[in-house]
């Protein structure tokens, strides 16, 4: 009898396992170095009421990497791998993600930005280059707007400056709304299968923010590279608008590229970004 139950349990678990395995990263994130969980590179810093986890790699000029909404340090493994040979790479788990604490019931982009500015201050970094992906791109832009002395060059991949249907595709808005509702339901049901509090905060962040104006973008002093896939989650028209409102800016739309280009096409992404970081900024014009 016991054996039968055990067998049933094993079969059940196997089926469950199979079901779970349907959900997977659409890109390979197997790295030799355990990015995001690397005791040799990781440290905690107590700032703004949380323990913020970050890792540092390499030597040279400082380069801050900022991951996206549902990600953590490991999602930018390809960027750590490539840039740590050239820069001192600093990459945190943003508040509520990875090993960093959430400790808020109203997560904002400004708060995350403030965390990262304090991280840079604590590390004694006056200013640095920034590569931000998705939410990380928004935070990169906010650093450029609100802390202009902190940023040298900014690369914002798949970033939006507001959150309506002129910025995001309908399926993105729908996905965020549904996920937020689901998280709220799970919290009220006291479900503990996932950290619904964090999921709710993440989804609310994307659902209700950011609210960066074009006038805000005008304030950015750093040279910026706006990057997007030609089938991004962000409307291509919105990426064009962001580009047009930053004084020193270049725009790169990747043919056949997606919102996930940094992990799907890492070589192409990294090389182009490095070219932007390394070279002098120029903005040639067709006008004759």
């Amino acid at each position, binding site marked *: 009898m016991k054996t039968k139950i055990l067998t049933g349990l094993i079969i059940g678990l196997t089926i469950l396992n199979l079901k779970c395995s349907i959900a997977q990263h*659409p890109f390979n994130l197997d790295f030799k170095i355990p990015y995001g969980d690397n005791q040799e590179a990781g440290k905690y810093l107590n700032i703004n009421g949380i323990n913020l986890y970050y890792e540092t790699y390499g030597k040279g000029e400082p380069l801050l990497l900022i991951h996206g909404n549902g990600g953590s340090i490991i999602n930018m493994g390809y960027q750590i791998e490539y840039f740590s040979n050239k820069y001192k790479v600093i990459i945190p788990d943003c508040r509520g993600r990875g090993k960093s604490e959430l400790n808020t019931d109203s997560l904002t982009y400004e708060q995350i930005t403030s965390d990262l500015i304090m991280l840079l201050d604590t590390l004694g970094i006056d200013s640095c280059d920034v590569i931000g992906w998705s939410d990380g791109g928004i935070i990169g832009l906010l650093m450029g707007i609100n802390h202009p002395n902190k940023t040298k060059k900014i690369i914002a991949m798949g970033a939006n400056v507001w959150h309506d249907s002129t910025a995001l595709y309908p399926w993105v808005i*729908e996905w965020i709304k549904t996920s937020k509702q689901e998280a709220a339901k799970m919290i009220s049901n006291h479900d503990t299968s996932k950290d619904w509090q964090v999921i709710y905060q993440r989804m609310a962040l994307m659902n209700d923010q950011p609210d960066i104006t074009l006038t805000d973008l005008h304030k950015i002093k750093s040279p910026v590279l706006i990057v997007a896939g*030609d089938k991004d989650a962000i409307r*291509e028209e919105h990426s064009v608008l962001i580009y047009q409102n930053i004084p020193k800016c270049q*725009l790169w739309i990747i*043919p056949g590229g997606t919102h996930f280009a940094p992990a799907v096409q890492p070589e192409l992404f990294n090389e182009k970004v490095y070219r932007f970081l390394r070279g002098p900024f120029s903005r040639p014009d*067709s*006008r004759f």
Partner: protein
Amino acid sequence: MRNLTLKPPFLLLFSLILICLHGQETSYADSVIPYGNNPSAGHYAQVNGIKMYYEIYGQGEPVVCIHAGGGSVADCTPQIKYFSQHYKVIAADSRGQGKSELNTDFLTYRQIADDWAELLNQLQVDSACVEGYSDGGIIGLLLAVHHPAKVKKLAAMGANIQSDTLAYYPWLLEFLEKLLPYAETKIKENDTTDNWQQYEKLAYMWKVNPIISVEELHKIKCPVLILGGDRDVVRLEHLVHIYRNIPFAQLCIFPGETHFISWFDSVLYNSTINKFFREPFKINDSKLLLEKWYGFELK
């Protein structure tokens, strides 16, 4: 008489004269082949009532290079050099330009596109990968709309489908406004410092053309790569608009580049297009990747 501020007057829109002058030392010096004026590669075809000049280089799958307005085969030099290593490159002078006859009162893009289709017929090219630059891109789009069998894949750089404020920046429209009366004046004055007859025809075409509707774009069956510099003469919104309305399209905006990338960064330009020609076409959608990530279908 209006005071014209065209300076210098020979600096025409879409004409690569400036670039040819600049690029001559570096670009032509290492090129012993006089592209655009090469008797050993050049031929004439009798097409739609004109003699149309074309040159052929290399072997393999056919690649068609269509030059910008006011230009000629010579403007395709960086592309011919690159693509002829792997493909059979067909480059021609569009009607009324280079060595090809005009024989019409009004140039239109449609007419030029029909000429190209007929040239390909005569060369027994069933279908080809087409690279079109500026006016060449417009002609490429019209080839894909009206002669779909002829175009396997199309790479259209800095192309527009209308010539208004939605497509162009104000400075360019202003320039186009002045160009036609300027050319007409020069003709009246019997000025022979430049080919004003040709510019008059082109200026008129640029002013009133192209008029390609989104419905026409919807008809395009082949994969299309829409390209532009982030500081092109064509508005980025317009390039996105064209991209949006072609069923199988990719969009490439080059950072820190102008309308003139085919000369100034020909390596990047050519290799981007070659990748598009070579690789099987697919649209990679963020939505599908996110679904894979989360393991469920999104609405």
